[in-house]
């Protein structure tokens, strides 16, 4: 499968700090104080480990996701490979491709459809910063515990 969506995501200071604060009141200055970040060896404030997920709000519809019923979709698994720091002020090119789709029979019967998306976050200098893989599970019926 090779369906791909791509878009640009600017790493804005306000969004980064808001995201860090929303996750457990994380007020670590490495995410917003340029001087503190420099003293820690970074050229600018960096972003929390899961920050890139905030770009999903900007993303055009994903291939294969249009028909999904949100009541029946679960986030099954998430993976990040960190290759290069992301700095506040970077402009990321975000490219998501449909990597894999497969089905399994659930323990309680019913078919579960797995979809794996792979997203690459590349900075303005062409450096790949993060590669993310996200697995969503669509159940045959409304999700039951």
């Amino acid at each position, binding site marked *: 499968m090779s369906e791909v969506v791509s878009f640009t995501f600017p790493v804005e200071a306000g*969004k980064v700090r*808001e*995201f860090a*604060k*929303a*996750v*457990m009141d*994380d007020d*670590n200055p*490495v995410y917003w104080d340029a001087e503190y970040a420099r003293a*820690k*060896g*970074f050229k600018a404030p*960096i972003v*929390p*480990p*899961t920050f890139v*997920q*905030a770009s*999903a*709000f*900007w993303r055009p519809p994903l291939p294969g996701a249009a028909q999904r019923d*949100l*009541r*029946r979709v*679960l*986030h*099954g*698994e*998430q*993976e*990040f*490979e*960190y290759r290069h*720091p992301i700095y506040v002020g970077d402009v990321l090119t975000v490219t998501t491709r449909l990597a894999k789709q497969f089905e399994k029979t659930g323990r309680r019967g019913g078919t579960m459809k797995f979809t794996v998306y792979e997203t690459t976050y590349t900075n303005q200098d062409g450096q790949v910063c993060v590669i993310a893989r996200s697995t969503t599970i669509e159940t045959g019926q*409304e*999700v*039951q*515990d």
Partner: protein
Amino acid sequence: MPRLSRTQIVRYAGASGDFNPIHHDEKFAIRAGNETVFAHGMLSMGLMGKMLTDWVGDGNLRYFRLRFVNRVWPLDTVTYRAVVTDKREENGESIIVADLYAENQYGIRTVEGSMRAALPRRP
């Protein structure tokens, strides 16, 4: 970790832009077969990430993976844990490898996964 509040879930929805109504709209969540709204998997991953960066230091994570195995509900108290499984040299860095998991107040696992991080060099 303190008990998870609905406000925290809504705050995360706003900050991340994930407005799937199953995480903030009680009626929608119930129609979908849930008792109430529940936390985004990525909020749990963010909380685990915060624990990890407090532990290994800023900018040192190299790999981070979680499976979301059970939902986290409002008022749950979740404990996040990392268990070191290996230390090795990789690409000129000292790498620490750990298994990760979290449990709620009933001992039910909410997430499980693994991570790799670079250890700061001793001078």
